[in-house]
């Protein structure tokens, strides 16, 4: 783990470091909650499948 954000094949004149903040419970909650709201949600609930390939 490193706090240096510049990665490359030589040493830069200045280093750019960031403080990696520890994830708080609030951060975690907000991230988990957002995951449920946004994006493309698509999955198959296998229990519900009731088609028969042979019929096709």
């Amino acid at each position, binding site marked *: 783990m*490193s706090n240096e*954000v510049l990665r490359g094949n030589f040493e830069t004149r200045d280093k750019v470091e960031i403080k990696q903040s520890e994830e708080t419970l609030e951060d975690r909650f907000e*991230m988990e909650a957002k995951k449920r709201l946004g994006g493309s949600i698509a999955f*198959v*609930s296998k229990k519900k499948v009731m088609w028969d390939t042979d019929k096709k």
Partner: protein
Amino acid sequence: MAKILLINPTVREEDVPRHVPYGIALLAAIAMEKGHQVQVYDENAWRQGDEVTKAVCVADDWDIIGYGGITTTYGSVKRIAKIAKRYAPQAVQVMGGGLLTSMPREMMSWLPEVDVGCVGEGFITFPEICEMVDRGGREFWDIKGTVSRKPGGGLIMSQIRPLLHDLDSLPFPAWELFPLEEVYFKNSQVLFSEEGMLASRRLDINASYGCSLICRFCYHLGIAGDMRYVEDENGEMNVAFDQPGTYTRSIRYHSPEYVGALVKHAHDKFNVNFIGFLDENLMTMDKFSGRTWMNDICKQWHDLGFAPKANDDGTWTGIHWAGTSHATLCTKEVLTTMREAGCSHLVYGYESFAPHVLKTIGKGATRESNLRSFFWTLEAGIRPVPNQIIGFPNEDFESIRMNMHAWDDLGIQVKPHFATPYPGSEWFTTYRERINGQYDGDLERFILDLGDASSISAVISHNFNAVELLGLREAMLQLNYRRIDEYEQIWRRNHQIPDGAPSTLLSENMTGAFLRDADKVKNAIKDSERQDAVVETANAGSTH
């Protein structure tokens, strides 16, 4: 040698960063191979705001600052360009990727900070730009595949950059320059399958470029033979992509041996336990290769000992993987082979289960092939990820109900995307005026508005407006047929369409135009069956 800073712009801020930018990682590797001094700042991964972007711009005396990505990075790119100009005015700013490629002239005029744009593939163009900057040259118009500024004002598009044939000559992406441990591995999980859910060290690879189909909402970044240069209405050279009646493709793939060696590198150096294939459509390549490519990749997986083996405690060793399939081009056999080599899930752009909609979108899939592939995939033990889209030009109440019935019958849980005319797609060209109209003639506002297609931006449906589509999607998600029936009555009254008549306002002319190209799609599917196919098939007027 040139001192190069590559910045990966921020994308999809509503989610955590999940994908190392493959293109930038390859360009970094190529530039280092050529002997340049390269640093990467992954703004998307670190998400530290403008202060840190500013700090990286002043951290050294950069000769070049390069950035780019997909269309939805535009907001971030605009900020980066301004910061870089202010804090590293000496650096030549190079922009590339699908964003620049889809509208090079507009981008160069909206972003005056950019000195040179890389139109299309960057594998040769980018190192040539670096080499020119390094020797003090600024005549970018001498380099193929660029758009740059004329000394007296105006833009110059140089000649088109031919695509690289020998893909295996590429180095492996410079994954080590990205915060894998700090950011990406923490976000390895892909919630599309059990194995994806348990992925803890995932990297993505891109084994092929292009797709033989012509879905009218799709864009291939100008790196799939999909881009032509034509004179525009002002008599200036400009890019052109799929247009009704004109489709070009050049399908290319890495050898299975390169893919195997790349996965071994990812395993040995980064200890990965999951690989995501970024390829647009694995099946188009498999069919094109005469059904050898996927088989041989799977064989690599077995030979290298990566095919997963179950442990007694329910866990497994090996490397699972996932990718994108196609309803008509997949076979039962290849799916079984893929499962045996560790494939856990496959994304299918089913888009719709309504035959009259499927006929107009250029996918070469039918309701039957959608259903068939769905069951074949499940039977093979792979989870299909059945993507859906609503709001197509001829979407109507009938197609909406057909989709709802299919979801209900198949157990599909899905929040459909909205059909979105991203720049570079055929429907962007077809509907450009309509899009402009929805943004008061300000196209840049449309670009800034683009994000995930699960949000609504420009509407291309002839039958429904944005608010209707949002409401209809909500009712669809709840399988609420009653509300849909009720709203159909209101809609028919508003548009004076009697009961029993098709619920559509799309002119027959327009439907006819979409259907006329259906034979091109059939040819695309048929052509990709040729056993003796040569890989390079760019050929105006026919798809491959």
